[in-house]
């Protein structure tokens, strides 16, 4: 193992802990597999980039981008946009579900007109 600095020790320990937690949740059946796979991929990729700082630069240059930091930034921006759209869609769905419940109650409790008798 290369000599790791304090930040690398901290970050790698954190990612390892997260991987163990994911594994335990998987065994207990508490997580959805497709999101688990995505998270594990993120922890492993981040861990590798921190363990081997030269790796993002090599990958960036392979893709025609000059600096590893730029590659990380582009990925972060794309990821942020993706997450934002995902959360917006989720919010929209929740809002529609709330409206359906409110509508159901409104119609259920609807009041008839007060018409004068005769």
């Amino acid at each position, binding site marked *: 193992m290369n000599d790791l600095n304090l930040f690398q020790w901290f970050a790698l320990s954190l990612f390892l802990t997260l991987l163990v937690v994911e594994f335990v949740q998987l065994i207990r059946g508490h997580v959805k597999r497709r999101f688990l796979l995505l998270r594990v991929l993120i922890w492993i990729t981040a861990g590798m980039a921190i363990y081997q700082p030269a790796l993002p630069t090599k990958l960036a240059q392979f893709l025609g981008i000059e600096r590893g930091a730029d590659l990380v930034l582009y990925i972060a921006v794309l990821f942020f946009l993706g997450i934002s759209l995902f959360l*917006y*869609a989720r919010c*929209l769905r929740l*809002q*529609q579900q*709330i*409206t359906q419940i*409110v*509508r159901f*109650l*409104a*119609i259920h*409790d*609807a*009041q*008839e*007109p*007060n*018409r*004068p008798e005769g």
Partner: protein
Amino acid sequence: MDEDVWIIVPAYNEARVLSEPLDALCRHYQNVIVVDDGSTDGTLVIAEQFPVFRMRHLINCGQGAAIRTGLDFALKKGAQVLVTFDADGQHMVHDIKALINPILDGEVDVTLGSRFLGDTEGMPRARWLLLKAGVLFTRLFSRINVTDTHNGMRAFSRNAADAIPVTEDGMAHASEILDEIYRLKLKFREVPVRIRYSEETLSKGQSGWNSIKIATQFLLGRIFR
């Protein structure tokens, strides 16, 4: 024939102005629905004074949501023609006949009120510009040719009211309805109506910034529908 016509009045904090339109509606139509969209000013108390169907959203959801609630209720009651009518007194009751006749005659599925084919009273220049921009937006994105895109006065046949989903809870519902008319290839016609602007209606109307928000909501809603 009149018992087949249902008027839906979505209302949010309209206690000050609701009496006049309800009084006028109840003189001519027996099936009027007031959908209180979570008002906090006693709007429903005012509605109780009139022979109207009343229902209340527990929270404020938006005019689109209130309209869909009213449409669903009216359809359950067997409505054949469904009319949306604003609660703030800017619409004229005598315009309803012109809206519903083409539907009763089976000529069209939807009629849309147009202030630009009809008449306006007290419309500020800025509002005119905003509405014209809305027409341009609608022609670009919904590909439907209308002269007035955000007029709350419209009528649906039973089939059209059932088919158009109205998933936009807020003001973007107006654009969504036009979008759906095009998508479902419904027969429609614009009808001249009169809109009366008052201080109340102008204070509640859309600002430029709100219009941009509505357009954005509509476009995003289209992506996720």
